[in-house]
């Protein structure tokens, strides 16, 4: 299945892009998508092993299940305010 991936701030610089799509076999978790991202975008391998992630714009743990068409966002440590 295909999952869209978005990169923000420093992670976008590491990936070299702000969005992409990755293919992962079903069933898959957010963690599986991130593993695929590390494979496809070598610059992202220096991200923490367990980066913050959002699934369809909600922060989730890495064991959250993903479905076809979902969006996984990789979020650097949050520093708003």
């Amino acid at each position, binding site marked *: 299945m295909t999952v869209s991936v978005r990169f*923000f*701030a*420093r992670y976008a610089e590491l990936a070299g892009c702000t969005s992409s799509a990755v293919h992962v076999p079903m069933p898959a978790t957010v963690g599986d998508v991130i593993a695929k991202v590390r494979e496809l975008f070598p610059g992202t391998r220096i991200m923490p092993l367990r980066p913050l992630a959002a699934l369809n*714009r909600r922060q989730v743990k890495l064991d959250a299940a993903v479905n076809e068409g979902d969006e996984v*966002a990789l979020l*650097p*440590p949050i*520093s*708003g*305010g």
Partner: protein
Amino acid sequence: MSHITRHPLDVNDLLARVQGPERGGTCVFLGSVRNDDGVTAIDYSAYEQMADEEIARILGEAQRQWPDARVILQHRLGEIPAGEASIAIAAAAPHRDEAFTACRFVIEEVKKRLPIWKKEMFADGTTAWTDAQRQAKPTTR
């Protein structure tokens, strides 16, 4: 009103949205860019749609905890010079305790939850993400 803007924040506008004759205590929190270590500005970026939704959730939680209070916030994005505000929160309630507490709740949740990032800009043209494990300061020029 969107919770995210690229323009200077207008505290009077926020106050007008929360104040009312039944709310006798109002407090405002402003978070501004500090000139630490020669920082001249911070470039704020966000996952805007998620940040806007998350702000709405935080304000909803505040509303449920303090039903008589009115709380609003705006976060500014883009390049913000040192000394100018990046976030403004206004809270009004019948009494000061709820106003202060609701305001404090909102800023603390913002710090934990909003997908917003800062890139510090220095006078010599260098920049640095504030989340980076702060190796040597310069990352780009």
